[in-house]
């Protein structure tokens, strides 16, 4: 066996950052926006500007957990011919930066590819694992098996509506971290982050989670600083996508995502 990892790559990164006295900055971008190569370059630029963990979104035709900014980017990615198999090459290139790369995907593309085959190819590409917004652990036995077989992280979501029983069940099924949805809603920038987020992080930890990161609606350095005080990681998506979407040129897009990353990273560094 060449693979001797026995613990979560993402979890190890979160622990290392905790040792440095700060939360992780987790940055999302959809594969294929504005095109496959462009999304890889943007992700690498984000890492160079301070993003600790990359969440690479797999474009899907029916993204029910996403707001308008990400829906539009995903439409562009699909219209441009982005394929599921493009994810593995992209993961390999982004992972070369040293940052853990999690693929964020709705479940049907994985099901269609074959759950074990997807896990095998993701692991071979150096991916850290999956974030699965429409797969609850109750429905995920195939993925629990495949991720164990291929030593991948499983990031399931919890929400302010989750019962204590479900928090415990989800925490036990997750590896890497648990994704705490800050608010009841879809992805997108919000002026305030749900007040229930801090309580949800505490409850999820109490339910057994080792690491809990907070996402949905987080876009500003002040929000990152607030969340960085209590969570293991701050997840930002739409703000990066909007920065990339608003740029006239590739170079300007890279500058824009780098600036967003640097601002958020600075916010997190001043949290504790």
């Amino acid at each position, binding site marked *: 066996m060449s693979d001797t990892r026995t613990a979560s790559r993402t979890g190890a990164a979160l622990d290392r950052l905790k040792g440095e006295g700060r939360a992780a900055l987790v940055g999302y971008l959809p594969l294929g926006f504005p095109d496959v190569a462009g999304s890889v370059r943007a992700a690498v630029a984000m890492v160079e500007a301070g993003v600790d963990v990359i969440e690479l979104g797999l474009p899907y035709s*029916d993204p029910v957990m996403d707001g308008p900014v990400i829906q539009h980017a995903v439409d562009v990615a699909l219209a441009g011919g982005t394929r599921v198999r493009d994810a593995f090459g992209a993961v390999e290139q982004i992972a070369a930066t040293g940052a853990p790369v999690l693929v964020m995907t709705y479940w049907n593309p994985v099901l269609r590819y074959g759950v074990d085959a997807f896990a095998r190819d993701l692991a071979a590409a150096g991916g850290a694992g999956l974030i699965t917004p429409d797969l609850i652990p109750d429905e995920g036995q195939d993925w*629990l098996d495949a991720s164990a077989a291929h030593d991948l992280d499983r990031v*399931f979501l919890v929400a302010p509506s989750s019962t204590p029983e479900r928090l415990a069940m*989800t925490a036990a099924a997750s590896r890497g971290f648990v994704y705490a949805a800050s608010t009841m809603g879809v992805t997108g920038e919000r002026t305030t982050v749900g007040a229930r987020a801090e309580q949800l992080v505490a409850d999820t930890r109490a339910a057994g989670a080792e690491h809990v990161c907070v996402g949905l609606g987080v876009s500003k350095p002040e929000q990152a600083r607030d969340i960085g005080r209590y969570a293991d990681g701050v997840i930002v998506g739409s703000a990066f996508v909007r920065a990339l979407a608003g740029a006239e040129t590739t170079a300007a897009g890279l500058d824009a995502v780098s600036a967003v990353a640097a601002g958020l990273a600075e916010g997190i560094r001043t949290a504790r």
Partner: protein
Amino acid sequence: MTTGRTGPQVTSSPGGPLATHAGPYFGDFGGRFVPEALIAALDELDTEFHKAAADPTFAAELARLHRTYTGRPSPLTEVKRFAEHVAPGVRVFLKREDLNHTGSHKINNVLGQALLVKRMGKTRVIAETGAGQHGVATATAAALLDLECVVYMGEEDTQRQALNVARMRLLGATVVPVTIGSRTLKDAINEALRDWVANVDTTHYLLGTVTGPHPFPEMVRDFHKIIGEEAKAQLAEETGALPDAVVACVGGGSNAMGIFNAFLDDPSVRLFGFEAGGEGIASGRHASRFSGGTPGVLQGTKSYLLQDEDGQTLPSHSVSAGLDYPSVGPEHAWLHDIGRAEYRPVTDAEAMEAFRVLCQTEGIIPAIESAHALAGAIQLGREVATWDTPDGREPVILVNLSGRGDKDVATAAAWFDLIEDKPVVQADEGEQL
């Protein structure tokens, strides 16, 4: 209550009568493929539904509404002149869901769910609609029961079905045109799901068919099973026997489950679901999930699905907006796989021909959705001679006439070239109602 039902249970549904099969799984299909944020609401709905199902006062209230408001029982009509177009010696009966208040079977489910909403203490309902029938039914129930109502409808459908948009607004509902994706029913459901995640504390998603996450497929079936129960008793009065075949159109599949359910455990009764074959399976422009689809997950449930090799949802096509959906209820997928029901495509052209025949032989204008079932009966006429019927009596086909065609007059006028000038057709749309 379904927590922990993982893995093996997904592929092993318990035995027992087919008609009372409970979710979340129908064989390898069904489940709850939704964000965690919705699970608490789905659990609450599941609990409330089963409590209501066991509560005689709930059943009495729903029965009272059906009798005094919906107009149930809906009649059973033998259509002798239409039957001549099916096969010699065949008897054809229509279950007249087209005569329900609001014009289709949709009201059965809507009233049931709306009463549940009141029990749960929620004050707002949201719904998706394609052709507008479910949206109109939901807006109707919301007006009756004093609920705020928001209906999501693909922008393309709001233009094709402008009058149904006006009907919903007359009834006090807010209609939100959905401008993302293909701008049709599938995208309206995505948008309704997004609304639900954000507003689940006050809001119930009044889903219009037997798909989506558990408990919707089971619950919506149970609110529609009255169709088959009534028809079975009415037909026994007419013929003294079970039908030889039961026929329905299948979009999401609620009218079909509604009429099939009472016959699932009668093995002599053949069950046929007719999907939208659009311009033909080979054309790629259709909504035939069983002929042209593969198992996959969409919008909360695992079922047969039109998808590409990457698992991206493919666009569907049908002359009938109500059948124009890329997936199908999971119980149909299960009935297909275990061989209890058979699903076949009917093309746009076959459906429109059956539409014309029923209009001209019986004086009944069917919904184009229901015309697919009528075309299916005509298809079956070619093989009915091979059926063994007890004592050699005439074969009996029961067709669910799920809706009426008022909404389809403009489409039919254009299809049959009934009005010379296109602008006149549009101007005349106002006369549909």
